């Protein structure tokens, strides 16, 4: 071999080695240097919810509940040595506001991930931007049917169940426990109602229950006389309601006024934010003689769980008693903490998303697991049913889990 050839071979080897070494170094460099919102001792999370306006009840306590769990994690030393720092902003449950808040968090505050949102329509408006910018996002307590079906990579939600899960639980309960043969469904003419009605019909029909009437009402309806009379005419032996708080009260009042109390009335959780207030507003004990509602948590049946979270909440909020929506802020924060832990010290956005995707988490506050998968972005599918007579709440036997099969 000539001296020149040997030199050429040496140069080629050196260049190849350098390229391989550079590539290897690049692949070993933690990607977190590229991901904003992470330092050696801090993870920055942008949190939002309705903290003002008419829907404040859906956001204020869940945000406080999630904050307290992050604080608790920080007290224990944080996640892999990093403390969690939160920036919290008000989204008013408005699509335009939520997009604005999300863009502020991402481009001005440069957060690592997003956690928030109590209203499905508003959350849906931000989903495209979140997926385009590849920002991990965990919903706070929005049911989020529209935001998680079809699933997208960066959006994780429904930590307390979708409308599909509520409707499937109720229809199963109605068919199996109450032995209903004829069902009536009353829902709103919005995305909640649409998902609720479709799943209720599919589940009832699966059990051979005839859906005799589906009434769709606007969320701002002020007189339920006509829909409730039509339901009475249809002679159902169970009524499933997916109404919001104010119409849910009107439904219960008319239900009693029209002498329908022999028929079980099943109300989805969103209509009964505070059971005692609901009973007071209905102002007719007869309306609650045969009344049930869905619930995604163990706090009603398990006094220890209830005391644990309420006491913790009070310790962070100057002794203030939480509203019942407080519990809905717990699961998403627990899931985020678990995924941050699973993602390890070399935290990246993609690593976090992968960890969320593999999550199958059971904990004391919920009757079923929080679970995601490559094609699943709705976390909770298991419900319990509560019987409420205006004074006492009794957890009905068993849990009710949606099997994940879509209604046709």
């Amino acid at each position, binding site marked *: 071999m000539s001296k020149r050839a040997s030199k050429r071979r040496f140069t080629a080897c050196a260049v190849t080695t350098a390229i391989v070494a550079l590539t290897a170094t690049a692949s070993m460099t933690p990607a977190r240097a590229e991901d904003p919102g992470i330092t050696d001792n801090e993870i920055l999370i942008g949190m939002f919810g309705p903290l003002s306006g008419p829907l404040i009840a859906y956001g204020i306590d869940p945000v406080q509940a999630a904050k307290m769990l992050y604080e608790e994690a920080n007290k224990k030393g944080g996640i892999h040595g990093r403390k969690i720092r939160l920036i*919290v902003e008000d989204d008013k449950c408005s699509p335009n506001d939520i997009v604005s808040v999300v863009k502020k968090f991402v481009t001005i505050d440069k957060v690592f991930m997003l956690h928030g949102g109590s209203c499905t329509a508003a959350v849906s408006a931000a989903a495209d931007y979140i997926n385009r910018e590849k920002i991990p996002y965990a919903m706070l307590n929005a049911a989020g049917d529209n935001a998680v079906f079809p699933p997208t990579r960066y959006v994780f939600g429904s930590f307390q169940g979708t409308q599909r899960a509520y409707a499937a639980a109720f229809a199963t309960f109605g068919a199996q426990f109450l032995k209903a043969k004829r069902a009536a469904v009353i829902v709103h003419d*919005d*995305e909640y109602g649409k998902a609720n009605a479709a799943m209720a019909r599919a589940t009832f029909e699966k059990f051979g229950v005839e859906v005799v009437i589906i009434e769709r009402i606007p969320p701002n309806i002020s007189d339920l006389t006509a829909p409730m009379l039509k339901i009475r005419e249809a002679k159902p032996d169970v009524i499933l309601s997916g109404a919001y708080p104010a119409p849910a009260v009107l439904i219960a009042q008319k239900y009693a006024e029209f002498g329908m109390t022999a028929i079980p009335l099943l109300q989805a959780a969103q209509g009964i934010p505070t059971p005692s207030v609901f009973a007071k507003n209905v102002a007719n004990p007869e309306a609650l003689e045969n009344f049930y509602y869905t619930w995604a948590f163990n706090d009603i049946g398990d006094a220890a769980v209830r005391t644990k979270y309420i006491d913790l909440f009070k310790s962070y909020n100057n002794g203030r008693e939480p509203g019942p929506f407080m519990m809905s802020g717990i699961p998403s924060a627990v899931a985020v903490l678990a995924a941050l832990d699973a993602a390890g010290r070399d935290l990246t956005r993609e690593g976090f998303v992968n960890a969320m995707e593999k999550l199958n988490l059971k904990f004391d506050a919920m009757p079923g697991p929080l679970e995601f998968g490559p094609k699943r972005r709705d976390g909770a599918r298991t419900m319990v049913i509560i019987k409420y007579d205006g004074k006492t709440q009794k957890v009905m036997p068993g849990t009710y889990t949606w099997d994940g099969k879509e209604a046709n």
Partner: protein
Amino acid sequence: MYGSLRASEFVGVLAILVAGFALPFMLPEYFLYTGNMLMTYAVLAIGLDLLIGWSGQFAFAHIAFFGIGIYGTAILESRLGVPYLLSALASALIAGGAGLLIGFPAARLKTVYLALATYAFAECAQWVFRTWDPVTGGSDGLRFNPPVIFGYETGTDGAAFPVVAIILALVVTATLYLAKSKLGRHMCAIRDSEHVASASGIDVRGIKVATFAISAVFASIAGSAYTLFQSFINADVLGASQLVTVLTMVVIGGSSSIAGVLLGVVVVGFLPEILRAMPHSLLVWQEFIYGAILVAAIVFMPQGLWGLFRQRIAARPRRHDRSARESPAVRPVPETSP
């Protein structure tokens, strides 16, 4: 034409265009998004001001036409593949046609009856947007792709910003011309006194109907601008609260003035962004603050911030002009400079 436009009156238009092309290189996406929203609101508010401020018609169907612009453009462009500009034009024609249709009966109504009738139309339109599932996506909302204009893809706030600025500049220019036109003068005459206008030979009903149509077209253009930087629409956005926001912009800024409306848009549009940074214990007072500002504006600035500003400027030389001070107040004709 009743008077020609001075070159200085286009300074504002030029400023909008310069900002439209320069700011995307200087600002992060959050500010560009806020800017896009404000420019969209500006087009919407200028359209509403034509009805309320210029011709004195208290009509509240404006958000319905905004919705027609959004849904029309999104459906035509994203689902049927019609080019963006044609989609926007078609939506504007549909909205203008709808404006004519409600303009004819509405022109016979006044005051609270007109307000109620047009508000009912807006509610009906929102119901259609929410329930016409196969077309509008119903209550699930409608997701749409970023428009492409002659190969230029919008969709990000930076890419959309210059296009929205051009739209605003065109709308402001059109309104400047309208202010100087015979139609603009007739609108003002009707606002000041329908009887006098009619006695002067002005076709009151025809002018009112035309104003409804032009205002609807402006609202539709705002809707088309909205689709440039958003990717999702739900009928919830097109409710009464949106109308109140735009109305507040017009009232606080100063009606029958382009500059006043733009000022109102900036003040009211930025307010939520500023209030959002308030301590959380004070956030619940936001609605109260909005209400207080609106009441204060009506009581202390009946002609809005811009009117107050002009009054202050006008008052200065009058200190030295006794005769001018003693002359009776005359309501100014619409301000045309942006």
